[in-house]
């Protein structure tokens, strides 16, 4: 067996700091795609309740200490940080942990930076804590969740990690430059 080097998706790329806003990699966690089998959505919801979660409505996340489940598309959600074994037989479960780069953008300029890249209104009044969306980060597919008043969790395909860091980093720099001009 070859000795392989374990690397996270954003290894060597993050953190990236611009003023008080920080883009950082989220700690590694188990990510499982959950797609309910036909007619099993209710039973799946009950099984998730047992885990302290629930089946998320479109655009919503359900979270508890350490674990969360994020709506991620039509009849699909991502279970993060929990063992999916209790859902066996109720939904198609596939491990996605190595397939996505998960990062956090947090700080006063997070919204302004994302406004340059994402075709959504991400202001707190429109996109509140606990809401999630599938959309584009410039040209990349993205799953975004608001986790606090100034914080977002962002997931992109792992192969796009460097591009995503570059895009968000450039937007952060541009927002900071504009801030220096107008202050």
């Amino acid at each position, binding site marked *: 067996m070859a000795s392989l080097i374990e690397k996270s998706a954003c290894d060597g790329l993050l953190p990236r700091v611009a003023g008080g806003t920080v883009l950082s990699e989220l700690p590694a966690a188990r990510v499982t795609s959950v797609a309910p089998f036909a007619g099993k959505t209710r039973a799946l919801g009950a099984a998730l309740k047992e885990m302290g979660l629930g089946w998320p409505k479109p655009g919503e996340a359900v979270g508890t200490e350490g674990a969360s489940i994020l709506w991620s598309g*039509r009849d*699909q959600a991502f279970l993060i940080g929990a063992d999916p074994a209790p859902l066996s037989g109720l939904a198609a479960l596939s491990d996605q942990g190595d397939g996505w780069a998960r990062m956090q953008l947090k700080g006063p300029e997070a919204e302004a930076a994302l406004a340059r890249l994402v075709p*959504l209104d991400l202001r707190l009044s429109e996109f509140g804590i606990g809401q999630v*969306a599938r959309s*584009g980060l410039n040209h990349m597919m993205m799953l975004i969740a608001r986790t606090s008043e100034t914080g977002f969790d962002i997931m992109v395909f792992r192969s796009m990690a460097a591009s995503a860091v570059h895009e968000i980093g450039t937007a952060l720099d541009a927002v900071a430059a504009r801030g220096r001009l107008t202050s």
Partner: protein
Amino acid sequence: MRITCPLCGARDRREFTYYGASVYADRPAEGAAPEVWDDYLHLRDNPAGEITDLWYHELGCSAWIEVTRNTVTHAISATRLLADRATPTKKGARS
């Protein structure tokens, strides 16, 4: 142009891929006559008025959406998930 995804809400056009007239989802039954397949693959109406199209929410929730819009006014009057349609019609089935 903005399209209201039944799951995601009003979204920018850039998130969607256009796939043509919605009759493309009405695939002929197995064993249908060649004329029916020819019609299905190649013949499309081109009305000045209301049409229904297929759009794929590629940069979003990955749902197929049937969009009713007007080619004269460009107004979008309705959107729904393709999965919410009644069973698609099978044309030209040989019983």
